[in-house]
């Protein structure tokens, strides 16, 4: 938790990347993480692949399917992270669906996160009430930041409730969409960012979904602490594999003005 909070306090225009563990090859998870850090990435979300990723578009669906075929699992991901953690200074956030975590055991999962140096988790289908009643204490005692999503349809009161119960950042989903579905940010989306900003929240926001290039990243940074590139990066991995120089060029290009 400290790493995330420190980053959010000290830095503006946080550049964050999402990618799926075990894709394109099972052992690519850590080389990609290394390459991202070298290229100047500030924060990573590593996706735990799931058979039924219902909030994801075709690009991330494909990467999950491939990663599972490659043999990726939560256990293996923990092993991979544990090995490399000492050389990584970026906060690491795990993102995935609740069923595999539930099957792993939420308590066991959180204690393993703590053990290997995971800083936060994003579980989009773990409902707020369920988290609040059953797991919040567990997460907080372990120092694992749980990250909630908000969308253009989330009412203000609910955003405030989420704000009061968040301890890392709020994941501000840019539009009504699954991952990778849209490109460009419309006036309507900017209005929504402004509406959220006018709520005077305590928790910093990072914008994700539809952030794919320098221009969307730069715009998003004007309305939040930073932004997350997901499908566009996974597409790069699909085309170029875990190639250090391709990853470096990708990150540098998007960050060039920030």
């Amino acid at each position, binding site marked *: 938790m400290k790493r995330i909070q420190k980053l959010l306090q000290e830095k503006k225009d946080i550049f964050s990347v999402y990618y799926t563990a075990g894709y394109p090859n099972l052992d690519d998870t850590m080389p990609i993480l290394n390459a991202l850090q070298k290229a100047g990435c500030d924060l990573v979300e590593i996706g735990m692949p799931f058979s039924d990723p219902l909030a994801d*578009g075709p690009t991330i669906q494909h990467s999950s399917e491939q990663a*599972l075929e490659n043999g990726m699992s939560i*256990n293996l991901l923990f092993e991979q992270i544990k090995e490399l953690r000492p050389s990584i200074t970026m906060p690491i956030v795990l993102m995935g669906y*609740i069923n*595999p975590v539930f099957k792993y055991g939420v308590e066991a999962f959180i204690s393993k996160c703590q053990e290997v140096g995971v800083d936060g988790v994003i579980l989009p289908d773990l*409902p707020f009430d369920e988290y609040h009643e059953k797991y919040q204490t567990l997460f907080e005692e372990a120092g694992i930041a749980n990250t909630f*999503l908000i969308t253009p349809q989330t*009412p203000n009161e609910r955003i405030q409730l989420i704000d009061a119960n968040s301890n890392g950042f709020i994941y501000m989903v840019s539009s009504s969409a699954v991952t990778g579905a849209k490109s460009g940010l419309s006036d309507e989306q900017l209005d929504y960012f402004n509406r959220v900003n006018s709520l005077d929240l305590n928790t910093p926001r990072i914008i994700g979904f539809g952030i794919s290039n320098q221009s969307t990243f730069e715009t998003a940074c004007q309305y939040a602490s930073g932004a997350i590139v997901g499908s566009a990066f996974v597409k790069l991995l699909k085309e170029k594999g875990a190639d250090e120089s391709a990853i470096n060029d990708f990150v540098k290009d998007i960050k060039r003005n920030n």
Partner: protein
Amino acid sequence: MSKKNKYQVDEKGMYGRFGGAFIPEMLYPNIENLKTVYLDIINSEAFQNEYKALLKDYVGRPSPLYYAKRLSEKYNTQVYLKREDLNHTGAHKINNTVGQILIAKHMGKDRIIAETGAGQHGVATATACALMGLQCVVYMGEVDIERQAPNVARMKMLGAEVVAAKSGSKTLKDATNEALRDWICNPEDTFYLIGSVVGPHPYPDMVARLQAIISEEIKWQIKEKTDKDYPDYVIACVGGGSNAAGSFYHFLDDERVSLVAVEASGMGVDSGETAATIALGDLGIIHGSKTFLMQSDDGQITEPYSISAGLDYPGIGPQHAHLHDTKRGSFISATDADALEAAKELTQLEGIIPALESAHALSALSKMSFKKDDSVVITVSGRGDKDMATYMNRFGF
């Protein structure tokens, strides 16, 4: 807690330890909205009048409760068949779709999306949309589109757009994922018309209420036909579990009535080629609901198998999981071979060709023992027209 509530959903959307709404935040406003209005709409006089009129004049209800004389003689008991196969479009699915379409209209939604496996729910949804003049998009796995060509054609003739789900195993669970993704992307104008008692709360309860007409009718029909006002057994097949939920609904509190659900075990419960969710019994979360499901040790949802496309869902409605937990319902399973045998038997003893799904329920007659004067109600959830290719293939006609 009143007795009535013991097997019904509680204020948190749970049936015991099952159910709930495990959905990404993007779906929260829609689910919350539906949760707030569905009971008021269903209980309103306007809805009830319209719904009941459609069930009567359009669907053709009440469906008969037929005393199956030769089947009764063979099994030395009193067998009554609840004839959902005689409904318009050929299955119980239409009870739910005409109900939900009215709810969608009351909510001011003008675009309807649905998932379908065998295509029965897709056809019933497309039918209700044609009736109401609403836009209809049906998601169907690419594999199922190939397997169920006649139903695809029916949906298209009814004016629906059929979209192939190309992800994962390209069957029902993937079609459901695609429908949920569509809803995430179209939260304002779109109503998701789910086809069974699955998905996030309030869907399992809403669909059960709309299928409850089945047991409402059985209740008065059995009184007309026997000297008792209740049956000893009610038996139905379960995929997601909507025809079973509807058949059980008004008997849940009446412990004199044994409730029996028949799952599809495909090639056998332990064969790896099965859809017997309760028999395998692993707790998890699928399509927004906490229930029993089929999954790997790593929590990846596995692909079910059954000869009947309507039963090969890797989960089961949360109410059924609760009925199993509390032992209020007994859950048995039937293989492909059992179902084929039962289908042939019903056809040749009573002149009724059942859907393969319903044939699973019928196979309970040979699996269980009944007393001579027990009244045994079996829901024939659909007719076999859609399965003729399989019957021709398996029986060599």
